[in-house]
């Protein structure tokens, strides 16, 4: 199996394309590592842990964000097969990327942690795979751990897939046990790609990445025909036509090849730097053997969460635009439109798949592109019917009309929560607090329950998951899918600082929660805003009506009594530091507001003191 120069040309029947679907921490990356070392793609020395998670953020958070496609060679019955492993993310925010990855495969490995069992996320990805008619190879991981409930989990999987117990493989990705058998099963059970090798060339772009040195790297799966390195290729949707600089496969290093044949997964580098010319979902064909009909693309992902992103330094606005353009290239799910805030200046209103997705995008913008950002509190989008019959879509609280509103519609989701049965009561209470309506409840095995709820999207995306985890000691898992919209009684709560409206702090709330938001937000801001030499009132208002108020008392004294022993240097550095700190703040009127204030709505749930409890109680009585 030691490989010197790997094969790069494979007839269709020797190709297998698959992905691994698994819940976070169920060992997918470890299994991928094991496959790389067992097939000789990487020597042990080369093998870093979690090789496939190449982005820093993925490594740090231990989650996979971007799909990657690695081709390894595997010998069975004297034949060498090319197995292409298309990695998928495991978080609910990234379902869209999962479906993209699955569209390039004929089969998938369903990896389940034998100590944990099936989780909500695994279920939803499994359903996606079934919808795509993929062959599923169920695998139990971590069977060597003391806590493994192998038999129990096996029988749940059998019920779910309608398979016999013997068809469920057992592995330990950590030790490598069973991985060989798994690779054999992939060859045996997953069908070879079915495209037409004689037909016009059609390849699907299922991913693309921007590389600072090489430009755009487009990942493709050849569906029909073939592509040669010297071919002039055409992207059917954008219409651009170019000769590739490089055609290749990832093994897991980028290896140039002369040709990609029907069924093969590989990459193309064209030297394109303009992001709009390499859209994921587009079809590539070639001039030599041009196709007339493109492949069926993907449905564009829907943004669930919106937030304003503003550069800290106003002169970074062009950089922010460029960075978003580049990010968009390998994350087609980000949407953005320019917006202006009186408090924060020029920025973008961005749409994300979820809160984690938003946090990751912000981190990537800061880390990979060096943009310092302020983000506003996230919100969902609302459809507002006006009294005159017109209709507007609100993605930013400032657009929310104050009057002449006939009805407001908010997006809904259907959530599935899987929890040990001991926590069912707590989960139901939590869902009710978040305006959830129960749709159903079923037992998965003797002590695991799946609860289904319909809830407003806005209720689930902020902090709900953390609360769910904390109320179930980390056991419950959550998955959700959009489920239309419903009419709701919503209002906009504005925040005024020293009498000035701070548009970036406005929020759209359910009427019953507006007071709580106002109360907590004003309290939070009182803690965050440094005192100044004048009194600063902080008010929450609905329209003209003030619903909550806090006051920051004026600062009376800041001078140090002395500079001990003539240590002027320390004093100077202290003042320099304070000035630097203030530069990072945003001015609203003449009050300097630290950045944390703008994202503090995210952590309002944690705010809980006696005063808040008493005021909320008194308010509820009214």
């Amino acid at each position, binding site marked *: 199996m030691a490989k010197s120069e790997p094969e790069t040309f494979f007839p269709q029947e020797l190709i297998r394309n698959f992905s691994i679907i698994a819940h976070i921490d169920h060992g997918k990356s470890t299994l991928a590592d094991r496959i790389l070392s067992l097939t000789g793609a990487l020597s042990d020395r080369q093998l870093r842990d979690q090789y496939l998670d190449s982005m820093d953020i993925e490594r740090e958070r231990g989650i996979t964000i971007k799909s990657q496609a690695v081709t390894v060679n595997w010998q069975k019955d004297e034949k060498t097969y090319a197995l292409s492993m298309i990695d998928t993310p495991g978080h609910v925010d990234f379902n869209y990327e999962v479906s993209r990855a699955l569209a390039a495969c004929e089969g998938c490995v369903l990896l389940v942690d034998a100590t944990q069992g099936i989780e909500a996320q695994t279920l939803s990805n499994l359903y996606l795979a079934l919808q795509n008619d993929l062959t599923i190879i169920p695998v139990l991981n971590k069977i060597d751990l003391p806590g493994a409930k192998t038999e129990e989990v096996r029988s749940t999987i059998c019920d779910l897939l309608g398979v016999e117990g013997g068809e469920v493989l057992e592995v330990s990705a950590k030790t490598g046990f069973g991985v060989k058998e798994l690779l054999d099963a992939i060859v045996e059970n997953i069908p070879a790609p079915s495209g037409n090798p004689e037909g016009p060339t059609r390849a699907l772009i299922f991913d693309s990445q921007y590389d600072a040195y090489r430009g755009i790297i487009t990942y493709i799966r050849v569906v029909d025909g073939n592509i040669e390195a010297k071919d002039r290729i055409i992207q059917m949707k954008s219409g651009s036509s170019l000769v590739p600089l490089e055609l290749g496969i990832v093994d897991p290093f980028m290896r140039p090849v002369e040709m990609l044949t029907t069924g093969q997964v590989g990459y193309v580098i064209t030297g394109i730097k303009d992001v709009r010319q390499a859209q994921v979902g587009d079809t590539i064909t070639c001039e030599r053997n041009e196709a007339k009909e493109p492949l069926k693309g993907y449905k564009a992902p829907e943004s669930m969460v919106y937030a304003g992103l503003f550069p800290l330094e106003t002169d970074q606005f062009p950089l922010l635009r460029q960075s978003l353009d580049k990010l968009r290239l390998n994350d087609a799910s980000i949407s953005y439109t320019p917006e202006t805030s009186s408090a924060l200046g020029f920025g973008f209103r961005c749409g994300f798949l979820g809160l984690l997705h938003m946090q990751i995008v912000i981190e990537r913008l800061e880390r990979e592109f060096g943009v310092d950002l302020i983000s506003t509190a996230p919100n969902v989008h609302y459809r507002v019917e006006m009294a005159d019959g017109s209709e507007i879509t609100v993605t930013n609280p400032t657009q929310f009309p104050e009057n002449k509103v006939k009805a407001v519609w908010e997006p809904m989701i259907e959530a599935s929560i899987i929890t040990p049965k001991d926590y069912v009561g707590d989960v139901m209470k939590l869902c009710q607090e978040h305006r959830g309506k129960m749709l159903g409840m079923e037992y998965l095995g003797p002590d695991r329950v799946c609860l289904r709820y319909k809830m407003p999207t806005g209720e689930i995306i902020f902090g709900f998951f953390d609360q769910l985890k904390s109320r179930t000691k980390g056991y419950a898992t959550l998955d959700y899918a959009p489920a239309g919209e419903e009419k709701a009684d919503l209002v906009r709560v504005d925040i005024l600082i020293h009498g000035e409206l701070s548009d970036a702090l406005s929020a759209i709330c359910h009427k019953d929660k507006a007071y709580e938001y106002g109360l907590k937000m004003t309290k939070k801001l009182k803690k965050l805003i440094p005192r100044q*030499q004048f009194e600063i009132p902080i008010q929450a208002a609905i329209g003209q009506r003030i619903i909550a108020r806090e006051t920051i*008392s004026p*600062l*009376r*004294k*800041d*001078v*140090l*009594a*002395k*500079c*001990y*022993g*003539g*240590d*002027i*240097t320390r*004093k*100077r*550095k202290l*003042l*320099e530091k*304070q*000035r*630097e700190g*203030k530069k990072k703040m945003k001015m609203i009127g003449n009050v300097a507001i630290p950045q944390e204030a703008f994202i503090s709505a995210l952590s309002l749930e944690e705010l809980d003191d006696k005063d808040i409890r008493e005021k909320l109680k008194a308010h509820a009585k009214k």
Partner: protein
Amino acid sequence: MNFSNTLPPSSPDALGDAYSFSNSPFRVYVHIPFCKKRCGYCNFNTFTSFSLAPGFDKNTYPRLLEREIKRAKRWQEEHEIPLKPASSVFFGGGTPTALSPSQLSFILESIRGAWGIEEGAEISTEANPDSVEGKELFDLKRAGFTRVSFGVQSWEPRILKILDRTHSPAAAWRSIRKARKAGLSCSADLIYAAPSEKRKEWIRTVRFTSNLGLDHVSCYALSIYTRTKMGRQLEKGLIVQESDGAQAQDYELADSILSRRGYKWYEVSNWARKGKECLHNIGYWKNDDWIGLGPGAHSHFSNLRFWDFSRPGEWAKAVYEERLPWEGEILGEEEKREEEIFLGLRLKSGLDLKRLEKESGKEAGSAFLSSLRPLARVKGGILFPTRQGRLLNDFLARSLMDRFLD
């Protein structure tokens, strides 16, 4: 914007090479790092053990200082930094009077031998009210000291206990009386905003102090630092720090009482009878040159700021090996301007706005000046801090820096 934040400290030779001439007066500060007992709020470089490192104790310390003095003088000569006689000498600590008058005298003579001391120069020492007896005060006077600053802190036994002070009010009273008798100009240091101190206790302390015939009074707000005994008590919630509002009230009360008794403020924390201001202290804020001697002491020569190693062992080793126990920084134009602003704002004599405008090439403008109104006013091209401006001195300094610096 300022590279000095990230630059490693410069060596004495690099500092000496970068010196640019100034004709400021020259002063000497001597740090005496010994104390009988560390006070609960103290974060100064001071030690209760009298043997601080091998070869470094109360008995060897004057000789060590003598070596540092000689080595410092050689450094000046090597780098052609003009030698000037000292316009003032100040012994601080710690507790300088932990050393005997003859030891202090020895150090003073070493200074005189190296640089000379101007005729009629102010020579001060800090003293703990219970560490000097009557005879010692006469000895100090005879050795050439002109001024003693007593760490009185409070006249309330309850507050002295909270502050961990060892002396009794009676001992302080006796020491001050004897010092005056010996012909020394006397000052008292007071501390306000001690945890749980009542306003009437503070008023009593200031009133009593103002009746003692002292020349000078300093009032310092108690600052509680994290790594002190009080800092730990604060963390545990055993004590509560007074709010800045309460501190401001204490300050204003002291300022009113002292002013009525003939003490005028001349620096944020200092009040004096006419002509009795501490010139050494003013020198710090006027950006005079001074050399600091002893572990942790700071020095300033024109565009140089440097400081002695603060660890006694490290300091003593360098001194024994005839190396300068210093490191420091070279000030650029930007830093010099920053310092000029926040130093000047602490003084009654104010900040020379005209000069600042000329040097920076930027105008203050009347809109900016009126925005500072409750904190400062301008007269004859000088910006004077008001009482409110003294209390919000940092804010005032930052506002001016934002205006005059990039």
